[in-house]
């Protein structure tokens, strides 16, 4: 259970807390279901679960402005939910169905929604770092006040492209917030085994990029940090780096024996679980009664079940889809031996 913070004055309203609670609960239940379905071999491919990291998705959603863009890596089931996508479109994408948010053509690692400014999950580690700066470049070019929230893992920061991008993004004062979802592991490799500088907020220092570390188990802290960083970028001051310390409760993917970490370590983070923290605050404030909580749980359970049914009932992409969406025009002369 999370620590009691009774009588602490809260900076956020009841509405904000309820939204966070519902968002995090949906992500949690959705992902638990994904894990179960994957084990039942209802869908194939990779399945990287987000469980434990939900405060980041809930926090960016409340902190961002309409019009801001999002780009992330392959651990991307929760980001579209945070942006307000109905979970059935994420589930259908996992199933590779034509009703999925990427028409069943991307699968688990490639959630896209132009409508919701979700510029993708990306499977090549670090690929989204320069693209995020490029999205920001276009916003600046077009004179908007939008920023791009560019998410990456702690493993991804080791790609050289990060440094090239940081330099140009600072040089050109691009409205981008680089957000490291630092769960301390890249597959089986801890941050400490890949660097002498384990404080990742310092990664931008040689480019004079401001950075800070953030408690990623606290949705309040995440919200505040992203809001501050995004405002900084929005006002024309250039990029900001956030090293958000979080934890994934599950393995890297579904086939990870997790020998690289201890049960105690996992427990330490579960004790700070973002879902319990938010719910505790709500209960302490008396904003919800037990019956209300049960009702919310039941509604979300229904929503997740509806999503599974939607995905299972949806059709696979038609065979003709093999040759669509590759070029922007329909009459490309493919080689047909």
């Amino acid at each position, binding site marked *: 259970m999370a620590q009691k913070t009774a009588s602490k004055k809260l900076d956020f309203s009841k509405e904000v807390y309820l939204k966070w609670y519902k968002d995090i609960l949906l992500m949690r239940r959705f992902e638990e279901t994904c894990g179960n379905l994957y084990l039942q071999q209802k869908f194939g491919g990779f399945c990287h679960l987000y469980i434990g990291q939900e405060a980041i998705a809930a926090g960016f959603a409340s902190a961002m402005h309409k019009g801001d863009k999002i780009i992330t890596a392959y651990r991307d089931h929760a980001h579209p939910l945070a942006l307000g996508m109905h979970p059935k479109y994420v589930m259908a994408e996992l199933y590779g169905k034509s009703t999925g948010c990427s028409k*069943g053509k991307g699968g688990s*690692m490639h959630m896209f929604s132009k409508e919701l400014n979700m510029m993708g999950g990306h499977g090549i580690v670090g690929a989204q770092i320069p693209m995020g700066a490029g999205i920001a470049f276009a916003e600046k070019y077009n004179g908007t006040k939008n920023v791009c929230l560019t998410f990456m893992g702690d493993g991804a920061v080791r790609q050289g492209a990060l440094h090239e991008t940081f330099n140009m993004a600072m040089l050109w004062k691009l409205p981008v917030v680089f957000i490291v979802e630092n769960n301390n592991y*890249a597959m*089986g*490799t801890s941050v400490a085994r890949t660097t002498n500088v384990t404080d990742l907020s310092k990664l931008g220092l040689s480019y004079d990029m401001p950075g800070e570390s953030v408690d990623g188990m606290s949705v309040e802290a995440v919200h505040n940090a992203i809001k501050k960083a995004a405002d900084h970028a929005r006002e024309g001051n250039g990029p900001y780096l956030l090293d958000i310390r979080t934890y994934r409760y599950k393995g890297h993917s579904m086939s990870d024996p997790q020998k690289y970490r201890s049960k105690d370590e996992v427990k330490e983070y579960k004790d700070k679980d973002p879902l319990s923290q938010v719910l505790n605050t709500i209960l302490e404030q008396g904003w919800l009664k037990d019956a209300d909580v049960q009702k919310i749980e039941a509604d979300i359970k229904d929503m997740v079940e509806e999503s599974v049914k939607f995905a299972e009932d949806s059709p696979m992409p038609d065979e003709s889809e093999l*040759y669509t969406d590759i070029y922007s025009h329909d009459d490309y002369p493919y*080689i047909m031996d």
Partner: protein
Amino acid sequence: MRTIQFREALREAMNEEMRRDKSVFLMGEEVAEYNGAYKVSQGMLDEFGPERVIDTPIAELGFAGIGVGAAMNGLRPIVEFMTWNFAILAADQIINSAAKMLQMSGGQFNVPIVFRGGNGQAGQLAATHSQSFEAFYAHVPGLKVLTPSNPYDAKGLLKSAIRDNDPVVFLESEKMYGDKGEVPEGEYLIPIGKANIARKGDAITIVSFGKIMKVVLEAADELAKDGIQCEVIDLRTIRPFDVETVIESVKKTNRCVVVDESWPYASVSSEVAYRIQRDAFDYLDAPVLRATQTDTPFPFTPNLIEIAIPTVGGVVRLVKESLYLV
């Protein structure tokens, strides 16, 4: 003879060469403490220690280049890429540095390095994670490109690759690591640049390589039931290409089908077909045909995957087409 897995054959090759030569070391993501993302290097950290079995950060360009530099300075690195899709980030060091060094230094600096890892599609991993790189690297003078199709070849070829004095691109597959095959105890080498006649026949020549060889051999079994004896050539090495073995076979069978798991455009299959029409034109009784992946990024869903890659039925049909039986 004993049977071992493909991954064990690779491991034996590396272990034997590392015992034999102190200058050989292994480096890559998750190769040491995690025992390899696909368990190829299981136990190697225990035997050789962290100086010789080295975990890298996710920094393909950097560690590939470090490998090239180390090779220029007397070591013999084995650089593992978790898959070849990620080695695209390292392509600069493979193509611009490793492949060019000996020539541009006027013969002073050779680069004895092996780049290895999983290649090609491995199920529902979507387009970026499903690419075959034979043709990409075969295009580049200065590189050698090896594509073992079974555990026996994997071991013998990898040992030759490690002993080779030039950069070698070694293409494996996540889908082959669990395959079992006969591998004798003790040491043997398979020469680079020599194709293997995997099955003798006189009706038609099928040229293939790598993981899709399994499909080809199954198709050849099917065809044999109809009395069609295929000669199956497993190229094993893509560059240098053993033209002689292919031409000799085509002169005997007068027909050829190429089965290539990568895209059709500017592919290994194009090169094989070109060489055959150039060197055995008068012997051909039918055009050279090929089965390849469709000319599309690799799809995600099972129903599309099935039509995107060569299948047993597809190869059987193609052979019959070449024989004018359909």
